[in-house]
């Protein structure tokens, strides 16, 4: 772990929307094949942090970013092709977004945008991703129906399949279980445990217990600052370094 560079390295990241700074100098590093949990109350800039990683933050007007983010040792602001950076990072939003396309096209969308046109390759990719997202068996007979017609839980797995469709090396999940039932949540958690063998996962979650179940290390982000970052057992033990961590994970936080 010491020898290879971390998959993601964030140093002193600051982000402001207009004059309002929401990330106040955040630093952390994530090694390959880790599940990295990020916990913290609403408004602590977790989503904003993820949007900095794949540079979709640039679609928001009037933002100021400073500090550095490195993916595989390369500064994301200097990558020659920002679309390639975004394909390297799969992103799953809190609310499932089935694009108004067929199930097949939902998953084939990203490879097509990247220039893949070969039918067999596309079909193979779609099947692989739907299988990885544990959705294949439920939809394999109706790939041409609209993605938006699926149930919420299925749409969230479709979203995950889409996030995997560009074969990312990093998968970011932003409170993915906020709109789905516990059974589906558990299924997706199993999926994540499978995926970690191949990719690095950043798991932003509002359910502290989910981080506890899945994450190797967990970061407590609060109001745009890192309160504590440690192995998950330590964070959830009776004696984390910071009193606020203890209060938050025990659920008695203001």
């Amino acid at each position, binding site marked *: 772990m010491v020898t290879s560079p971390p998959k993601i390295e964030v140093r002193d990241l600051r982000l402001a929307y207009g004059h309002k700074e929401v990330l106040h100098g955040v630093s952390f590093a994530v090694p390959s094949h880790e599940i990295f949990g990020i916990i913290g109350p609403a408004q602590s800039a977790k989503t904003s942090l993820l949007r900095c990683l794949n540079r979709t933050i640039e679609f928001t007007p*009037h933002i100021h970013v400073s500090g550095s983010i490195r993916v595989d040792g390369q500064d994301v602001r200097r990558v020659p092709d920002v*679309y390639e950076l975004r394909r390297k990072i799969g992103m799953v939003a809190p609310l499932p977004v089935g694009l108004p396309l067929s199930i097949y096209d939902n998953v084939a969308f990203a490879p097509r945008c990247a220039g893949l046109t070969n039918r067999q390759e596309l079909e193979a990719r779609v099947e692989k991703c739907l299988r990885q997202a544990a959705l294949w068996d439920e939809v394999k007979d109706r790939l041409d129906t609209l993605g938006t017609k699926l149930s919420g839980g299925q749409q969230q797995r479709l979203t995950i399949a889409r996030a995997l469709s560009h074969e990312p090396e990093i998968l970011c999940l932003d409170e993915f279980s906020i709109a789905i039932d516990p059974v589906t949540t558990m299924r997706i958690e199993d999926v994540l445990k499978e995926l970690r063998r191949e990719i690095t996962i950043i798991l932003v979650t509002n359910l502290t217990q989910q981080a506890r179940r899945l994450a190797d290390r967990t970061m407590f982000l609060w109001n745009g600052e890192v309160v504590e970052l440690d192995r998950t057992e330590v964070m959830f033990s009776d004696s984390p370094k910071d009193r606020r961590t203890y209060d938050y994970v025990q659920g008695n936080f203001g």
Partner: protein
Amino acid sequence: MQPFQETPFSRRKRRNERLAQVVLGGMALAMVIPLLLIVGYLMFKGAPLISLSFLLSNPTHGMREGGLWSALLGTIYLVVMALLVAAPIGVLCAVYLNEYARDNWLTRLIHLAVINLAGVPSIVHALFGLGAFVLFAGLGRSILAASLTLAIMTLPVIIASTKEALASVPMSFREACWNVGASRWQTIWKVVLPNSISGILTGVILQVSRTAGETAPIMFTGAVFFKKIEAGNPFAYALTDQCMALSMHLYTVTTQVTNAPEALPYAIALVLVGAVLAVNATAIWLRSRLRSRKKW
């Protein structure tokens, strides 16, 4: 004691609910009445004159007899030309403003200009068209100058309606596309436009009726009271010609021609309204076709 009891409050609530339904529904119905009255009255007065030969022959005897071919064809030329110019420019403009433009003073200025242009009276557009196209650009009074004037007039409205259609596509769709490495253009082409096309088309087609009905902008720039062309020939006008138009013809026959048959103005109006309604009906049909493929 019964589990569900009527109280004075619940009774009042129920009564108000029914009242609201009746009043609102009544208003909606009342909306339809003027339309029915207008069309019905026009039919009653004008229908006897309508026939295929009325549509396909030219006015004769100082416009007291014959048909309205030259005016009908002129209106078609003007509307088609105006929309051929205004629709692509307007839609592309709106796509830029809604999907690309950053929120800065220049963009806000453009928005302001669009909104205000939409509110400029048509007679002012007429003067602008006279100055810009007829005189300055040297197009003379012609179909070209008149349809460009109409295009300028409809442009801001098309921009506004297209922007509205684009804005109705949820932001989350765009974000989902960007997240998987789609460029702005790929997102627009594959997701945003397919899902707003019915609204965009509706906005454009609604401008057909507006353009067809206008008199002021074309009066100064290319429409004439009378012009002799070959009856029944759809290519009888050249773009550099002046032309007749239904709206103007109606005005002429009503106010300038003595002893015109009483039914004539109504027949002209009926053709104008009929043509516009036919276009709108097509639009509604098209819209429902596209809608049924709509996806969320």
